[in-house]
């Protein structure tokens, strides 16, 4: 048995995919304004007392966040305490050397506040964009994660693989004082859990449908695998979508039509089922993955699921294309100022 006691402080973050919001008349705002608003969200997140603000790489008209690290750098310049990172970086279609350089630069700019969450890419737009074949995604992720793990350790890197030019005794700059906190986002593949443990990275469960409890065996798998690989205990986080407003009714009314439209749109290209009122209700409940409601409703659900998974970090993925910026800023404030203190209280 692993005799270490998990002793990571509870931490709470926000994740965004840079969704384009709507103006007062329901029209989408510009990409440039979306990005400027996001910088404001990062600042608001720090003001609300949150620990982490993460931006997930996307390349679509309604989520134009293709260069997350640039936006994070602007947030870094206007904040002092909050950690900043990707959520996720689609490593499969990126160059691990460039990813390392961008985030070690962010780490320098922010004075040590950069984190990185690596993903294989459930969002697939980057593959054709950068000339990768989707059917290679497993091999690409496996190999690039391996290279990234080498880079993260610091020091000259020697590496050889099939997906990128080899490196021989290569110094990669800027140097770090300590390895970047690195997570792998896992959607339910046990092999990904093992890989995360193998590299000694932190594990972020991306739960975007159904009960978080079904990931409990994966938490156990992670702990056993860390032990087998002779690694120290690592953090376990939970990422799920949601929205917070003054009341349950208001939160649901602000969220549902846009959630329905977005999933319906994605279903056309991804083969998802189109959400119904009934499926929405189910996802809102204890067996679902949505955290939509008043601060008390959302806090109760977060606390329950962190406990079930033995997780010490919760990242709320906020925002859906078509919601208003005002409602998102309110959600950020309520999440930081009311939900998080309440979760801490419930778990104390």
């Amino acid at each position: 048995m692993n005799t270490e006691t998990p002793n990571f402080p509870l931490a709470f973050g926000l994740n965004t995919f840079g969704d384009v919001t709507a103006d007062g008349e329901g029209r989408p705002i510009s990409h440039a304004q979306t990005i400027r608003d996001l910088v404001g969200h990062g600042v608001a997140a720090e003001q609300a007392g949150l620990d982490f603000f993460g931006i997930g790489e996307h390349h679509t008209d309604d989520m134009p966040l293709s260069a997350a690290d640039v936006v994070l750098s602007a947030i870094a310049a206007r904040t002092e305490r909050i950690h900043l990172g990707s959520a996720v970086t689609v490593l499969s279609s990126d160059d691990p050397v460039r990813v390392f350089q961008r985030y070690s630069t962010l780490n320098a700019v922010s004075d040590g506040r950069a984190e990185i969450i690596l993903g294989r890419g459930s969002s697939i737009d980057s593959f054709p964009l950068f000339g990768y074949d989707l059917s290679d995604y497993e091999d690409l992720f496996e190999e690039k994660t391996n290279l990234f793990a080498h880079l993260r350790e610091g020091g000259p890197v020697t590496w050889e693989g099939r997906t990128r030019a080899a490196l021989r005794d290569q110094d990669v700059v800027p140097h770090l004082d300590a390895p970047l906190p690195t997570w792998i986002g896992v959607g339910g593949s046990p092999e990904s859990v093992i890989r995360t443990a193998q590299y000694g990275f932190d594990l972020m469960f991306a739960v975007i449908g159904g009960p978080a409890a079904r990931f409990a065996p994966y938490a156990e798998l992670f702990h056993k695998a860390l032990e087998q690989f002779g690694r120290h205990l690592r953090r376990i986080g939970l990422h799920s979508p949601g929205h917070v407003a003054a009341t349950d009714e208001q939160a649901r009314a602000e969220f549902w039509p846009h959630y329905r439209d977005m999933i319906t749109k994605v279903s056309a290209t991804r083969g998802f089922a189109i959400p119904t009122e009934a499926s929405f209700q189910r996802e809102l409940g204890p067996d679902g993955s949505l955290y939509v409601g008043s601060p008390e409703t959302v806090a109760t659900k977060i606390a329950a699921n962190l406990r079930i998974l033995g997780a010490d970090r919760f990242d709320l993925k906020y925002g859906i294309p078509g919601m208003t910026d005002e409602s998102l800023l309110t959600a950020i404030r309520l999440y930081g100022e009311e939900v998080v203190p309440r979760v801490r209280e419930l778990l104390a």
Partner: protein
Amino acid sequence: MIATPRPRVAILGVGHVGSALARILLDAGYEVDVAASGDPQRIQLIASVVMPGARPRWAEEAVADADVVILAIPLHRFAGLDRSMLGGKIVVDSMNYWAPTDGVQPLFEDDELTSSEIVQRELAAARVVKTFNHIGYHEMEEDRRPAGDPDRRALGVASDDPDAAAVVASLIEDAGYDTVLAESLRDGVVFEPGGPVFGARLDAAAFRAAVAGELETAA
């Protein structure tokens, strides 16, 4: 009463889908072997923690001893699968061809045949049954209900071999679902992404109605 021996199951693939299927079949009392590519040692820990009771084995050995083999691999791995070992087996095809997500695969680019018909063509000596492709892996455990429960969800089963379809249907019913049988592998087209039952939680009557409407339109 003489009990018919239950078929032995081999699941190829221990990802999201394979591990969820292993759990529901183990719960239903089936003997389940699991295999990934290569040495079973590599999946020992996964099997022991997330599908306790499943036996990790080399794929060829698991398949040789199995009556029913479930392909729970991403479709793009199918082309690299050793097909010779599957002759004579009931092979469950839980896969989908969805080029926008999986990339274009020349083997499955076909205007005439469904992906499962292509799987059957490639595995000529096997008895292919299409099912489990239209339920999310995360719903497989959650949506199980005992027989007779008004909320029991139905899954579609399509094959050109009625006996193979019956064996697989009985396994699905033991696992906690009603079944709706399609006449042929070709009719299984209605279970595919974009179809009326893909990802939909339907009971048997609603499933039949949805599927019937679709096949009439197509006819």
